[in-house]
């Protein structure tokens, strides 16, 4: 027996697509108003223009904030992914209580509210006699994205066949060489996923940046928040926002497509499993990926 009647299935499909419309509507609204002539986002629409894009890219504060955020997100993604590799390798070996405790501490940033961590870091900066700086923002972002890196890298690492690494070492590779030549290349899809997730999260982070970015050097979200309350700046914010939304949607599609392609290739190269088992594995790992990602 099917679990749903034909009518039920149709109803669920309508419900699902209605939600997709609801979820994308605000994004579409931004896209529409980014090319609308009137400086106030209101209906009726007043004609097509690209002037907001020109003005946005001519606004040094805005582009400066963008560049700052991209730089911070890149460094935070590299730090977190590197630490994520270390943590995953370490957790692979640890057993029992030590492993559970280490994992709990490493995943704590998922639980502590960003606002609390932000004020804590502000206190820490003050206590060590430093001043708010972009470096402090980078460190704060690296901590909050570290769990994402671990949750993406660890399952992939666990799914690798340890005998490949052992074989490399039996053939004379040092542990480091085995790591570099065997383990890391096999981890590549997960490392790319990790870096992307960390980058996107840091790029969008507001709480920590709002407390730790020096006043003359806003990150992009900090600038965005300030200008969302300044009507004159709103059209430029919408224009850049539309570009960023289009870019991130494209990135999601490319990342997921690329990851599937890469993993299929790697699975094809390294395992002679029957096609069905491979497919099952693919499905499972994308489930995990999605899980961790969301």
């Amino acid at each position: 027996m099917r679990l749903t009647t034909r009518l039920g299935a149709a109803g669920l499909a309508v419900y699902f697509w209605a939600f997709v419309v609801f979820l994308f509507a605000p994004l579409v609204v931004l896209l529409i108003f980014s090319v609308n002539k009137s400086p106030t986002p209101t209906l009726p629409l007043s004609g097509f223009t690209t002037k907001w894009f020109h003005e946005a890219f001519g606004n040094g504060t805005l582009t400066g904030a963008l560049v700052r955020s991209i730089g911070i997100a890149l460094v935070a993604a590299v730090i977190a992914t590197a630490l994520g590799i270390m943590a995953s390798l370490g957790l692979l070996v640890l057993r029992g209580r030590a492993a559970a405790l280490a994992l709990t501490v490493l995943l704590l940033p998922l639980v502590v509210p960003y606002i609390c961590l932000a004020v804590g870091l502000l206190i820490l900066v003050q206590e060590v006699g430093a001043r708010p700086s972009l470096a402090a923002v980078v460190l704060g972002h690296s901590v909050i994205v570290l769990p994402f890196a671990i949750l993406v890298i660890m399952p992939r690492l666990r799914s690798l066949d340890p005998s490949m690494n052992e074989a490399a070492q039996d053939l004379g590779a040092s542990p480091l060489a085995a790591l570099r030549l065997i383990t890391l290349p096999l981890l590549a899809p997960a490392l790319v996923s990790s870096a992307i997730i960390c980058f996107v999260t840091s790029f969008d982070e507001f709480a920590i940046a709002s407390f730790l970015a020096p006043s003359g050097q806003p990150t992009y979200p900090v600038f965005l928040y300030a200008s969302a309350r300044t009507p004159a700046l709103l059209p430029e914010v919408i224009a850049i926002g539309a570009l960023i939304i289009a870019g991130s949607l494209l990135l999601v599609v490319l990342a997921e497509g690329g990851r599937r392609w890469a993993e299929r290739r790697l699975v094809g190269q390294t395992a002679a499993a029957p096609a069905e088992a491979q497919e099952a594995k693919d499905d499972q790992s994308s489930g995990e990926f999605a899980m961790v990602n969301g």
Partner: protein
Amino acid sequence: MRWLRPGKGALVLPPLVFVGVLLLLPVAFISLYSVGLRTNIPGMPTAFSLSNWSDFLTGGGGAFRGRFVYSMEIALVVSVLTTIAAYPLAYFLAFVARRGRYALLLVLLAPFFTSYLLRVIAWQIILNNNGVVNSLLWTLHLRPHGSAISWLIYSNFSVALVLFYTWIPFVSLPIFVVLENMDHRLQEAAADLGASRAATFWRVTLPLSLPGVIAGFVFVLIPTTGEFITPLLVGGPNNQLFGNSIQAFFGDTPNWNYGSVLAIALIVVVIVLTLVFGRFLQTDLRAEARPGQ
């Protein structure tokens, strides 16, 4: 400490130290500030004192207690509504859209990967007094020009709506994973034994999917408890959440000692929630949720 011996296991130490210095140490400092052992107020003596705590818990800090209760109410209402609304989405993906369900899952999740702040700003544009909804009603002559719907923005409605919008893709995920990994033979067995579709759902599918439902519920509840950006942009003065109170004490009207009390209170609540529901989160993170667990 056997596990500290040199070897691959020790690789976990640098990340642990990193989290220790940049997360545990800040939280330790907040604790010190909350009991007056450190202060940012010039001329204030530093000595152990629970006066800020007693003010918040039982004394004159009634406004913050009220804000706390209000935040918890909003967080609970949003979490319940989001979980209920997400279930059919997950059910559709797992049992109706068999083919291409991962592509559809990605469609559902994609908005979640776009900038959170931008999405809140988009809602502000949609809901505000001469925003998309109101101006559309004017253009269609459904409301007199210039008269805005009063509860559309800067209200409980707008804060709850935007939080609901933000979290729904994320909640459908753990529910989907549990439904997806469910042993379908159990549902077939129920049907073979004469259960109707409705009975199969209420007595087999739904109970077996509860770990995912609870995980989804907690996935919203925990971050919503500490939320402060949405109320800043679409909430009025009466819709600010507990996170906004913390923010204010470290921003415009600095009193780090009192703010630290609120921050620690929030951390304690979130940690208690995590401990209570942690079992379900872990089950779920490992994607091991199987019937019978």
